[in-house]
């Protein structure tokens, strides 16, 4: 197992260098530069432009800039934002817990509903429940996030007033946020009602962000289950008179899980992409909105640093998924 983990870890290095290079060059490939964007209609004199370019350090050749960036990254320095002038690292870690909290909730929501739904659909293949479920999943998968979020807000927050419209907690609560995870911090604050308020604020964004992964997981579970249910050993188990619950729940599901876990791992990327829209609509202070704003402002350090950190997160998740394969299927470990 250790060897397996180490070999997976080694593949990190080229991927990391590749991601650093891509994140550095992509934002520079876009037309327009941050100084012009910053100056706007007011314009800027040539002398002032040169001064600022020097200050931001991009009057130097591109390979020098890359080298400095790379050595900075290796020392844990991602530079300062052109706009807020604060370290990228600080900004990322101030915002990341919010994204992580929402993504975890969305993933729990998607798995908790998607997995059983897929299993039930597979077991009842071709029947009404199967068809209804799979059509709903298709709708869920195709739904524009923006529209879906606004619809939920108008119905549940506007008309029914069951949930708050946006934000992470009722603004009347004010307490320290040592972890950045609102659920934990609100509980730790001991303020009456804060925890419930935080939970209520999570409901709609979780549903919106979890909808697409939920649909994908349900469909993937169903098809993986169908494949497994057709295998010889399942027939044998049935012939032996094993109960359907035991066959489906233990023998079939466990073997169907490998492709499902792959999909869950890949969904992390989808979650981060979906988080951009979800966070914007629900005024959720996470990294999605931060990245988009920075791209528009051509805030190079934030875009390249943020992309790098997100890529590292996805890489870690993929590594974890690879490890999980080994746990579920010992054959993979030995290969």
């Amino acid at each position, binding site marked *: 197992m250790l060897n397996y983990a180490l070999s997976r870890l080694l593949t990190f290095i080229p991927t990391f260098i590749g991601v650093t290079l891509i994140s550095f060059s992509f934002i520079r490939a*876009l*037309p*327009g*530069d941050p100084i*012009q*964007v*910053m*100056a*706007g*209609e*007011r*314009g800027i*004199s040539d002398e*002032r432009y040169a001064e*600022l370019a020097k*200050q931001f350090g991009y009057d130097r050749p591109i390979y020098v800039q890359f080298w400095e960036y790379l050595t900075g990254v290796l020392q844990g320095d991602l530079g*300062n934002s*052109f*706009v*807020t*002038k*604060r370290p990228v690292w600080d*900004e990322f870690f*101030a*915002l990341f817990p*919010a994204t992580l909290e929402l993504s975890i909730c969305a993933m729990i929501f998607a798995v908790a509903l998607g997995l059983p739904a897929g299993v039930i659909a597979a077991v009842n293949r071709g029947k009404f429940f199967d068809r209804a479920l799979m059509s709903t999943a298709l709708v869920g998968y195709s739904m524009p996030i923006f529209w879906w979020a*606004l619809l939920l*807000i*108008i119905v549940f*927050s*506007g008309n029914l*007033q069951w949930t*708050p*419209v*946006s*934000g*992470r907690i009722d*603004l*009347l*609560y*004010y*307490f*320290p*946020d*040592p972890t950045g995870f609102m659920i934990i911090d609100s509980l730790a604050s001991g303020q009456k009602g804060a925890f419930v308020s935080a939970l209520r604020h999570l409901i709609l964004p979780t549903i919106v962000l979890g909808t697409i992964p939920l649909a994908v997981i349900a469909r993937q579970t169903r098809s993986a289950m169908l494949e497994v249910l057709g295998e010889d050993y399942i027939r044998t188990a049935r012939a032996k008179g094993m109960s359907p619950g035991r066959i489906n729940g233990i023998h079939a599901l466990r073997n169907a899980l490998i492709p499902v876990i792959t999909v869950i791992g890949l969904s992390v990327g989808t979650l981060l992409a979906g988080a951009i829209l979800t966070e*914007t*609509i*629900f*005024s*959720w*202070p*996470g990294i999605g*909105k*931060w990245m988009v*704003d920075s791209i528009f402002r*051509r805030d190079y350090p934030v875009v390249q640093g943020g992309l790098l950190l997100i890529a590292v997160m996805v890489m870690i998740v993929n590594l974890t998924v690879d490890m999980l394969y080994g746990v579920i299927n010992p054959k993979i470990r030995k290969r």
Partner: protein
Amino acid sequence: MSFNKIMATGLLLSTLGVSAQAQSLVYCSEGSPEGFDPALYTAGTTFDASSHPIYNRLAEFKVGTTETVPALAESWEVSEDGKTVTFKLRKGVKFHSNAQFTPTRDFNADDVIFSFDRQGNAENPYNQVSGGTWEYFGGMSMPDLIESIEKVDDYTVAFNLTRPEAPIIANMAMDFASIVSKEYADAMLEAGTPEMLNQAPIGTGPFAFQAYQKDAVIRYLRNDDYWGDKAKVESLIFAITPDASVRFQKVQAGECHVMAYPNPADVQSMKDDSDIVVMEQEGLNVGYLAYNTQVAPFDNPKVRKALNMAIDKQAIIDVVFQGSGQIAKNPIPPTMWSYNDAIEDDNYDPEAAKAALEAEGVSDLSMKIWAMPVQRPYNPNARRMAELMQEDFSKVGVNVEIVSYEWGEYLERSKAKDRDGAVLLGWTGDNGDPDNFLAVLLGCDGVEKSNRAQWCNEEFDAIIQKAKVLPTQAERAKLYEEAQVIFKDQAPWATIAHSVVYMTMRPEVEGYVVHPLGGHIFNQVGLSQ
């Protein structure tokens, strides 16, 4: 925000006996501020969160007008030659305090000098702090204008200028001229955390900064030692809500009291809702189409005037602005002093336009119209506007090709003297002074810079140069009115629109005034029980 900082603020709060649940005004703002030192930034969102609640300036704009009134300076005097402005400072003004800093003295001349010196003097230790780029200080030509700032005594400061300049008082009321505490700056420099000046601001304003969580919330507490009229609510909260539809839902649900920038499409349903109050006012801006007046046939004012008559501006207001705009006939907005309302617009008349073009011998004309790639209040959809103009011009036999570039490129290329085509662009006023529109956008100095029409008219230029140095507003206004007549007659631009700014709020909000300079100011806003 670090844990320690919040704990410290919390401790401070509890010692002050202030409850977080006290009467709070919640404002749904559209985005996060870039920081809290207004001199470092140029965005209105940043000024709303920094200069208006936290700071004061020597002079300030009276809320709801572009008129300047005394603030931290009780009075000022301009010398005979117009080159020295002496400010008498207000006594007994207290700075806020926070966990790291408690002021030991009142506001005085040292704070004024420091506030400007750090922006213009490369030797000042704060010049490079927080990546200081001082955009507005440079943009308003302060380095060329201010020769020196002198401390006459603790409560008197003299600004020595390189030339007489009447708009200097209006400039002193701008956000970049906010007065920061020198004592705080020194303390932070000594503690090795000079960036705190930007991150944990200390000012003299009606609200003291309490806490900020990026992209989520900003909190302020009333400054009970405020020198002027104290704020009506105990705390002010900015709930950062980027999506306009969501802001509206939050106002409806009572999660916010006031919101900025509603979707134009929602305004009608807001007006129909009896639980929502909508206020409106023309924005201090203008959207225009600038011809290149140095290239034939656009060097002929009659051709430009003919083209102006071919544009159906009402259709643009309806389609592009969806009603949230007003037809512009002058290069300055109607809320600005010296606006010449007597001027007649070149009304939409395609027949007359066609005849006028023929009379000038212009036929089979082909031209380019540049459409901006970004949204601005003065032009929410430039591409659509250009298409409407293309259609209008085709009716008078002018063939239009629409071009666009990435925003930075667009701004740069449109400055070229030999530019091919007319440019859609606009301007939002900085200091409420007509000079800020007429000289910047149409003066001879602006050719190949911010004067996109490349228009240099000697008569017009002489008038605005003269108006710049006259001492009284009445004398200046007269000249600016004349300048607008010349502008209309020479038609370097087709003036298109001024945006209309809407503010949406709940009925319990009292005393909100829409500010023509665009800021959202809550100093005197209260909540009825």
